[in-house]
């Protein structure tokens, strides 16, 4: 494909596709950002961490004998 084709396509696109509306940011987005940060904890606990904690809790209830061993390791 020749450069001319690319040049023609460039012109055609520029004339057909709308220019970016509002190319400048007109307001401060920090309040939105802060809301986003507040909505989501920075270090969310993964589901498998919760599953592991639940498993450990259940094991402690069913086999209380493992508690000293766990305490020793922690």
């Amino acid at each position, binding site marked *: 494909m020749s450069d001319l084709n690319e040049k023609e396509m460039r012109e055609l*696109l520029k004339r057909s596709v709308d220019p970016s509306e509002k190319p*400048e940011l007109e307001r401060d987005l920090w309040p939105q950002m802060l809301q986003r940060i507040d909505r989501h904890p920075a270090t969310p606990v993964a589901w498998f961490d919760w599953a592991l904690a639940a498993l450990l809790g259940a094991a402690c209830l069913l086999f209380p004998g493992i508690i000293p061993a766990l305490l020793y390791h922690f």
Partner: protein
Amino acid sequence: MELLERFAAGDLDAFETLFRGHQREVYGWIVRIVRDSGIAEDLTVETFWRIYRSRARFDPKGNFNAWARRIATNAALDHLRRTRSETELPEDLPADPRPDPAIARETRLSVRKAFAALPPKYRLVATLALIEEESYENIAQAAGVSASVVKVRVFRAVRMLRKQLACLHFSIGGKT
């Protein structure tokens, strides 16, 4: 401690300073890709959210601008991927605020349809290289690929547009 070091360490004030200092630039980059101010605002927040979450991986000696632009490009690309199937252009196009008398409405519609049908990664480079006239180097840096890959993608995007326009009974030589 330097601003970027404080940011990487999780200091929210440092992040706010960076946000306020770079939000306009990030928005300006994104709006050129997605061409919608509302979406660009949302994607700017999304970009900084990704930046905030990845702060521990950021090297304070690195270039924050380049890093932010790369993340912004990925956020914009994700948006193009998500909305590709939805990008159905209305049959009744709104009147162009600055109509170009040299180009017919049907022609604009055909070109827009062909452009909207481009795969997102080609649409990204086509928008930046062909419409925005951004250099291949800058696009490459933002997209995380080499300049030669950008060149190939532009070449393929032009070829795809030509094919798509041919399907729409439109030839570049004789416009309309």
